[in-house]
């Protein structure tokens, strides 16, 4: 596992650290004068399905802490192999589609329990498309998909084709989402509304010729030539100018970055087989849109047209779902218990399975095939999250939609072996609002994607929010784990 944790600010890294800088390795191996082809490796990819108003812990997943019996890690977490727990749907009624059992048997499903949101107990805070400290109207921090979108590590400027869409968001909520993007000010996260599938198709696939992969960037050679000259100028500068040892070390570091971006040109990516999908026909049926979006997202991943997708489920009274009786109220209201516990339960028991069946059939199934020549499936090479704001409140007990306490998250896939998948991991139950911060889960996903701490750890709204732990007690028992990925689920 090559996860890097370094909680130093960039300033701490650089200011007055001549001694440290001198100790940094200068890597001649990173200095190709010409591009060198490298072995194909899969891009890191992540798809998150966000169930904002989700089930309570008693329903989804069904697992109790006592199911995990083997100690893992140093803070008292326990785990168990999911496939040892019996047949589907061991992790809950919504996972009734046989593909989930197949994936579970292949140790590709992971369930983690025991995350607390800190600041916004009782609201949406700290969830996938929200952020480390809540959404904009509640905390002013950007969502992790926008962090990925803004990350130069995930999307290096010089090697990212112009037709790549850095994040594809689909919004089945029925209302626009307002969340903070990386940067200042409140902004709407650009998401395709549920009726915008044709527009999504045009934007995502317009640059793709049928049956081909994304067009190559033919300027790389020119850029390499330029960087060769730039690199030489740094060598000359460093050797001939009157500068201090600290400054020389700083230049060494600068030069290593030049080398790295040069090396980026030569990294080969798998040649994926992907077919441009058919132009979708116009429809007014949300069920068609839902299915179509899932198909388009799967193809976008296959074609290398994005590395990050998010899809949010919530809606008004979903009468459009085939074969599903009307709720008689909005889905949002039903999830909150506003129409009583029976309707709340029906929302959980009927509507979530509708979505999870669709996800399995139209998103997971096409990606359960080998990616290029990597020897692994797309699903193995990426992570697909079923992320939820469910918490310890029970259905019918007030605002049970997203209490954010002791929450459970589900991942499918292992990002090319980086996740210890196949397990149910129960993180320690240290009590109300003192469990492992949900931020730790979010930054685990970010690091899996290759986002560096410097790109997410700032605490201000102009930074990336995941470094904000202000809502937790000063005496939090797991304080030493703040800012760190969830080591228990990583290889």
């Amino acid at each position: 596992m090559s996860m890097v944790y370094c909680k130093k600010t960039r300033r701490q890294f650089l200011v007055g650290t001549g001694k440290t800088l001198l100790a940094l390795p200068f890597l001649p191996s990173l200095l190709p004068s010409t591009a060198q082809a490298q072995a194909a490796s899969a891009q890191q990819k992540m798809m998150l399905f966000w169930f904002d108003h989700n089930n309570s812990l008693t329903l989804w997943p069904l697992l109790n802490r006592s199911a995990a019996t083997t100690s893992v890690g140093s803070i008292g977490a326990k785990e168990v192999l999911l496939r040892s727990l019996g047949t589907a749907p061991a992790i809950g009624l919504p996972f009734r589609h046989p593909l989930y059992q197949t994936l579970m048997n292949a140790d590709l499903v992971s369930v983690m329990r025991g995350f607390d949101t800190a600041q916004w107990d009782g609201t949406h805070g700290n969830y996938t498309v929200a952020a480390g400290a809540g959404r904009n109207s509640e905390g002013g921090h950007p969502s992790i998909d926008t962090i990925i979108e803004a990350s130069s590590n995930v999307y290096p400027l010089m090697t990212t084709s112009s037709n790549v869409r850095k994040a594809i968001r689909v919004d089945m909520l029925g209302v626009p989402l307002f969340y903070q993007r990386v940067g200042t000010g409140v902004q709407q996260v650009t998401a395709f509304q549920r009726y915008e599938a044709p527009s999504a198709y045009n934007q995502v696939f317009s640059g793709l010729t049928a049956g081909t992969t994304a067009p190559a960037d033919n300027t790389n050679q020119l850029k390499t030539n330029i960087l060769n000259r730039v690199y030489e100028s740094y060598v000359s500068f460093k050797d001939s100018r009157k500068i201090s040892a600290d400054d020389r070390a700083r230049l060494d570091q600068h030069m290593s970055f030049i080398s790295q971006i040069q090396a980026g040109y030569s990294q080969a990516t798998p040649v994926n087989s992907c077919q441009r999908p058919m132009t979708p026909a116009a429809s007014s049926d949300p069920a068609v849109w839902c299915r179509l979006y899932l198909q388009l997202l799967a193809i976008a991943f296959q074609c290398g047209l994005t590395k990050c997708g998010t899809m949010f489920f919530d809606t008004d009274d979903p009468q459009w779902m085939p074969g599903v009786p009307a709720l008689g109220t909005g889905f949002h209201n039903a999830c909150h218990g506003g129409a009583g516990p029976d309707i709340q339960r029906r929302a959980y028991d009927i509507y979530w399975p509708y979505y999870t069946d669709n996800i399995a059939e139209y998103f997971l199934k096409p990606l359960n095939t080998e990616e290029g020549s990597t020897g692994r499936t797309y699903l193995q090479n990426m992570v697909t999250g079923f992320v939820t704001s469910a918490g310890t409140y029970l259905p019918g007990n007030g605002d049970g939609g997203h209490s954010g306490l002791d929450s459970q998250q589900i991942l499918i896939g292992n990002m090319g072996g980086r996740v210890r998948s196949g397990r149910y991991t129960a993180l320690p139950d240290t009590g109300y609002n003192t469990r492992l911060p949900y931020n730790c889960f979010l930054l685990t996903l970010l690091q899996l994607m290759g986002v560096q701490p410097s790109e997410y750890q700032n605490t201000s709204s102009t930074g990336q929010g995941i470094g904000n732990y202000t809502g937790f007690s000063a005496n939090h028992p797991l304080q030493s784990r703040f800012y760190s990925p969830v080591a228990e689920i990583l290889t």
Partner: protein
Amino acid sequence: MLGRGISRILVGSVGAVLCLGYVNCAPSFEPSQMSLSSASSALDLRAQGKVLYDTNCSGCHGPVEASTKRSRDVDLINWAIGNVPQMSYLGSLTQNQREAISAALAPQDITPPVMNSRGQQIFACTPGQVAKTPMLKLTNREYRSALNMLLDDFSVDLKNDAELLQRFSTLPSDIVTESRNTLKEQSLLVAGPIVSGAFEAGFRAGFLITTAATGLQNYPNTNSCLSASAITQSCHQLFVRELGSRGFRKRLGQSEGDALALKLWDATLTKNELIQATFASIVSMPDFFYQIYDRGNALSSQVLQLTAHELASKTAFFLTGAPPDAALRAKADSGDILNATVLSQEVDRLLALPSARQTMLRLFRESYGYDYYDSFLYDAAFVSGINTSGLQEVMNRELDEYFANVVIDRRGSFFELMTSTSTNVSDSRLASIYGVANGATNLSQERAGFLNRAAFLTKRSGFRASPIKRGLKVLEHVLCEEVGLPPVDAPTSLPPSVEGMYVSTRDQTQTVSEAAGTSCVQCHSKINNLGYPFERFDSFGRLRNAEAIYNGSGQVVASLAINTRSTSLQIRSPYAVNVQDSTELGAELGRSEKAMMCFVRHLKRFQARVPASSESNCEMNAPIQVMYGTTGPQGSVADAIKALILTPEFKRWSY
């Protein structure tokens, strides 16, 4: 001791307390050890602690004299080593060694202040010292300005290219939290995404100039050779010499220019490709990307006199965040800029440019940290339904404009900075907070100075204002006095009100944090008295005559009298200063030598991008003397900035 809201951040990152930069990324690193004699005197202990600190800690926290971790006691150091994973390698330090480090960080013995001839305190100065200055990378703001200035030479429209703007927008921010509550631009910050993003922007800019046919034809000193369909090597030499001179902020001689051109020449490229590659190369080279002043005569070992072009460049970046403009370049070309009168005139001219207002924005934001908000969360009913979305930036901009107005437009003094009622309210929400009409240009005396403005008063949101938070802001940012972190177990908020026994925030704060005989009072006696005068403002920055007490449901349950009187020993130490309210506090701070010296430290840090050390004292005495005023009233802040530039030390570089 009563904690501060920020303590919740800091407790989580008391990594902050003592840790070595980046060592957590290199876990095999071992802490440097040294033995301590059990018979060491206090002085020896401090000296030995300094050695340990220099070896193990200064990488993160700067030299011990200017450490951001002053006053850390050994308990906090122990806690940090024991609880912060990336500091765990320091666990092998003995208790004696940790105590030695703590001793080195303890406040030093009070030495008699150095006074000028008028009995005003100045910095203790050793003539001839020049602080070492690192080679500064251009900040994002400076990089954009520098690149745009080069583009303007071809066509003023090029800098508005959407794709170029998009590439600029992907450059990671170089504004980071340097210390408690202060966001600062970092010229030392070099990171892969910055290097990559800047290169990509330069590459795009290089393409753009190939599209500017008229600009290429008229490019200076190229004899219109770039208008031909193909480019000759001699034409390329002319182009490189001119572009390099502008990009590197110095006049390239023929041989130097030709040597550079030779490295960039590639006969296999088309004309446009070569022009693009040449441009992208030059703006990625160290002479463009960094501020470096190494071409002047040596005055002593590792101290150089700046050349005319270097002085022009240093002055321009300091005042405008951009390279020298054409007028200043001309003064550098002729050497006139080395004349003090000419330099003084150029400083005045540069300060009048729009770009200088942006510099003032950054100077004062970085100095006083008013753009940092721990949180900004208010109950809708409490703020009368005002939409708080984006309101922080509105508040910030009010002060941005305030400082530019006082310093540049009005050539105001430090006293005016602390007492002016000028404003430029351009948002109805802010007008509502101030109780004035939108568009108001003047406020009442209660709002005099910048401390009584919304951006300063909202540092802790919620129902209850925090005199601690406000006082701490004044103490640390206006008076440059660090009190260190609260203990790890310090509470982070006042206890909730008990029904029927309501106590004002001030009284509760005093009871909890200023009890005689507790460790809390040592710091809070300094902090709180600087915050109490602001009790006439609620947590949203609105004037109030009484303090409304809220219950857990957000309902007002009592209304209590407020008390804004205060006595502080920090403003004019060792003398006590009594103030009736925050307006008087601002006026006292406006006359405080300590506050003015603090501002000059901020100014020097902003200019040099590293904390001001004692080696900068002579340089800093020039602006402080101007601020005090040589005869009667205080001099202007603008003249103080100019005085810094006119010092001999500013015109030197020590590496």
